C-alpha cells in the first residue's frame, strides 16, 4: 500500500481496512421473509422446465420491495431519483400526430411482413418497421457460458414486434403470488435484439415494477434497426443463419402516437460500469457536422469503451489504443460521409466512431464498405487507383497512434503480384508469412520497391522495414493489424 492510497483521515485503505469495510457493508442477515418467499418461488409449477425466449411460463413471487422506500417516505425524504444511466434527449420537434408516420429519419416505414420479405436479399442498412411491441419479462437465468452477442440464450434481451396487436403476457392471481404467462406470438412477427450495451426496455414506458401487468401491454411503435449485423459471423455454425436474420434495434422512433427521435445510451456497458463522457450528444453532432451531409440523420448514439467497441461492431474491427478510452458509436441514416477516406459503396446508412477525448473520428463502417478484415478484399495485381497506387486490405479503423501491441519480430515485404500486396515475414518461428491489415485510407506503390502511404498520402513504411509490434491480430486468420510507426 503506497502513500497514494492514504486518505484524508490518514488511514490507508490496506487489506485489513478494506476487509473490515466489506464486513461492515455486508454485516446483515437476509430479511426474515426472504427464505420463505424464495422457497415459495421454487415451488412454482414451472420448476425445472426449460424455457426459451419464444414462449414460456413461470410464476414469480416477489418480496415487497416497497419496504425500504416506504421507510424513507416515512421520514419525509424522497427515496427515489431518476437514475443517470439512461439519458434520453428531448423528443424531436416532429409533432405527435397519433398516426403511424410514413417515414422516419428519411427512411420509409414498412410493415413487419414487408421487412421479413426484404430481409433475405438485403444488406445491413437501416430499415424502419411499424408494428406492436410486446415487452417481455426478464427471466432469472442460470450461469451461462459466454456466447456471441446475437446468439439466443436465456438472458438474451428481445422485443417481440408483431404486425397486429397481440397481448402475449397474461397475469393471474394464484395462491401465494401471481402467475405470469407469456405466449408465443402469431405470425407475422420478428424478434428485435437490443444494441449491445443498451437496454431496449429502458426506452419503453416506466417499468418500475416488472410484476405489474400494465407494463406488458402491447405498444404500437416504429423501430429503426438493421438485419445482417456484423456480429452474426461470431455465432456458431448452427445459429449463424438465425443471427444473420436477427433484427437489431438502433432507434425506437415512434411510440403510441409520439415521435421520439434520437436514442442515446450512456453508461450501458455489459458489466454495468458507469461511463462519464466529456462530450454531450450535441457536441458529438457538432463534431460530425463537417463529415456528414445535410441529408444525413443521426439515429442513435451509444457511449462505450474502446475495449467494448467490438460488442457493437463485431470482432472484424481492429481497434488500437487504450481499452479504457471512451468512444461514441453513432449510427447514421443517409449518404456516406465525406470523411474518413474509405471506399464507400452504395449503402443508405452506416456508423461512425468518435473519440470522446479528442472529438476525432476513429472508425467508420456501413454504406456498403467492404473491410479487408472480413477477408473479402478483392486482390489487384495491377495498380487500380490513380497515381499508380494499389489498394490495400484495410480495416474501418482509422490510424490513430502507433501501438506497440503484440510482440513481433518481422520484416515488411510487398509485391505488386501478390494477392494481398503486402505481408510480413515472421522471424519468431511458427507461421512464416503473416497477412497484413492496414488502417482505412492506406495504399501502396512500388517505386520500385514497396512504399506504404497513409490516408494523407505520406509514406509511412517501406520494403524491409522491421516490425517489432502490431496492434492486434485476428486469431482465426492470423492476419496482423499494423499501424505505423512500428515499435
Amino acid at each position, binding site marked *: 500500500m503506497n502513500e497514494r492510497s492514504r486518505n484524508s483521515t490518514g488511514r490507508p485503505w490496506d487489506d485489513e481496512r478494506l*476487509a473490515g469495510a466489506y464486513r461492515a*457493508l455486508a454485516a446483515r442477515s437476509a430479511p426474515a421473509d426472504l427464505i420463505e418467499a424464495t422457497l415459495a418461488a*421454487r415451488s412454482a409449477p414451472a420448476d425445472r422446465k426449460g424455457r426459451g425466449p419464444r414462449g414460456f411460463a413461470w410464476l414469480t413471487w416477489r418480496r415487497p*420491495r416497497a419496504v425500504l422506500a416506504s421507510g*424513507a417516505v416515512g421520514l419525509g425524504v424522497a*427515496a*427515489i431519483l431518476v437514475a443517470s444511466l439512461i439519458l434520453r434527449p428531448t423528443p424531436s420537434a416532429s409533432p405527435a400526430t397519433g398516426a403511424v408516420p410514413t417515414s422516419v429519419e428519411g427512411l420509409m416505414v414498412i410493415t413487419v411482413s414487408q421487412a421479413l420479405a426484404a430481409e433475405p436479399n438485403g444488406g445491413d442498412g437501416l430499415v424502419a418497421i411499424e408494428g406492436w411491441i410486446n415487452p417481455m419479462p426478464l427471466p432469472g437465468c442460470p450461469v451461462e*457460458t459466454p456466447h456471441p452477442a446475437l446468439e439466443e440464450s436465456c438472458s438474451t434481451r428481445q422485443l417481440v414486434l408483431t404486425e397486429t396487436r397481440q397481448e402475449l403476457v397474461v397475469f393471474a392471481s394464484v395462491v401465494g403470488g401471481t402467475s405470469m404467462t407469456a405466449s408465443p406470438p402469431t405470425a407475422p412477427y420478428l424478434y428485435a435484439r437490443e444494441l449491445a450495451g443498451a437496454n431496449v426496455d429502458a426506452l419503453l414506458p416506466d417499468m418500475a415494477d416488472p410484476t405489474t401487468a400494465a407494463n406488458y401491454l402491447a405498444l404500437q411503435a416504429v423501430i429503426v434497426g438493421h438485419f445482417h449485423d456484423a456480429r452474426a459471423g461470431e455465432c456458431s455454425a448452427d445459429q449463424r443463419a438465425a443471427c444473420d436474420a436477427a433484427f437489431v434495434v438502433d432507434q425506437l422512433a415512434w411510440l403510441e402516437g409520439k415521435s421520439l427521435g434520437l436514442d442515446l445510451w450512456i453508461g*450501458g456497458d455489459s458489466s454495468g460500469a458507469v461511463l462519464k463522457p466529456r462530450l454531450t450528444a450535441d457536441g458529438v453532432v457538432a463534431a460530425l457536422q463537417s463529415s456528414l451531409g445535410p441529408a444525413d440523420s443521426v439515429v442513435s448514439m451509444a457511449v462505450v469503451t474502446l475495449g467494448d467497441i467490438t460488442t457493437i461492431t463485431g470482432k472484424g474491427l481492429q481497434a488500437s489504443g487504450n481499452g479504457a478510452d471512451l468512444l461514441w458509436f453513432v449510427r447514421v441514416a443517409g449518404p456516406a460521409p465525406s470523411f474518413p477516406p474509405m471506399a464507400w459503396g452504395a449503402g443508405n446508412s452506416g456508423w461512425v466512431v468518435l473519440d470522446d477525448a479528442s472529438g476525432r473520428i476513429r472508425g467508420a463502417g456501413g454504406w456498403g464498405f467492404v473491410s479487408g478484415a472480413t477477408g473479402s478484399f478483392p486482390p489487384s495485381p495491377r495498380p487500380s487507383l490513380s497515381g499508380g497506387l494499389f489498394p490495400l486490405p484495410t480495416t474501418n479503423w482509422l490510424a490513430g497512434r502507433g501501438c506497440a501491441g503484440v510482440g513481433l519480430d518481422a520484416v515488411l515485404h510487398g509485391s505488386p503480384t501478390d494477392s494481398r500486396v503486402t505481408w510480413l515475414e515472421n522471424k519468431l518461428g511458427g507461421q512464416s508469412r503473416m497477412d497484413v491489415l492496414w488502417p482505412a485510407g492506406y495504399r501502396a506503390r512500388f517505386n520500385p520497391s514497396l512504399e506504404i502511404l497513409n490516408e494523407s498520402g505520406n509514406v509511412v513504411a517501406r520494403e524491409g522495414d522491421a516490425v517489432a509490434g502490431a496492434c492486434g491480430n485476428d486469431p482465426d486468420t492470423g492476419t496482423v493489424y499494423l499501424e505505423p510507426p512500428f515499435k
Partner: protein
Amino acid sequence: LNLRRSSGIEWVRRSKRLAGREMVNGVLAGRSLVDLARSGDVPAFESLVRSRMDAMYRLGLAILGDEADAADAAQMTFVAAWRELPRLRDPDRFDAWLQRVAVNSCRMVLRARGRRRIREIPMAEIDLAQKRALGVADPGRADGEILRTAIRHLSLDQRAILALHHLDDRSVTEVVEILAIPVGTAKSRLFKARADLEMALREEEGR
C-alpha cells in the same frame, strides 16, 4: 455438533464429515444434501437455502450495495439453483457453483436496475445526503458506507472479484473456479479492480 452456519466455508468443511442424511441444528447436513437436492428432494433443497441464504445475501450486498437488490439477487440465485442443480456434475463444488450463480444473478439485477430507471436509496445514503446538505462534516463516516458508495464506480466483474476476495476471503485459485476465468485474467482483474476501488474510496472519503 455445533456447526457455524454463519460461516459458509467452515460449515461446508465440517458438514462433509457427516455421513447420510442427518439433521443438524434443524438443517439437513452433509454432501448428501446436494445429492438429494439434485434428485429433486425438496426438504434437502430447503435446507440448502436456509443454510446459505445469509451468505448469498451478504455477497449480493457486497456486490450491489443495496439491500433490496441483494435480496432480489439472493432469491434469483436459489430459484436458478433449484432449476439447474440436476446439471451440477460435482456436488463437492456446490458452494463455488452457487456463488457463480449468485454473481450472475447480481449481473441480472444490475441490468434490471437500469431498466427500472428508478432506484431506492438506502437509508444511510439519505442520512449522508442530509448531512451534506446541512454542511455537517462527517469524519466518522463508517467505512462500510464509504465502500457502498465507492463500489458503484466499478464494473460488476470488478465488484464480484473484490467481494469474493475481501469479504469471503477467497484465494485467487478459488476465484478462478467460481468465476470460471483464467488465472491470468483473475489476477489482472483483481489488481485493476483494487486500484480502481482505492481511487473511488479516496474520492468518496474526501467528500
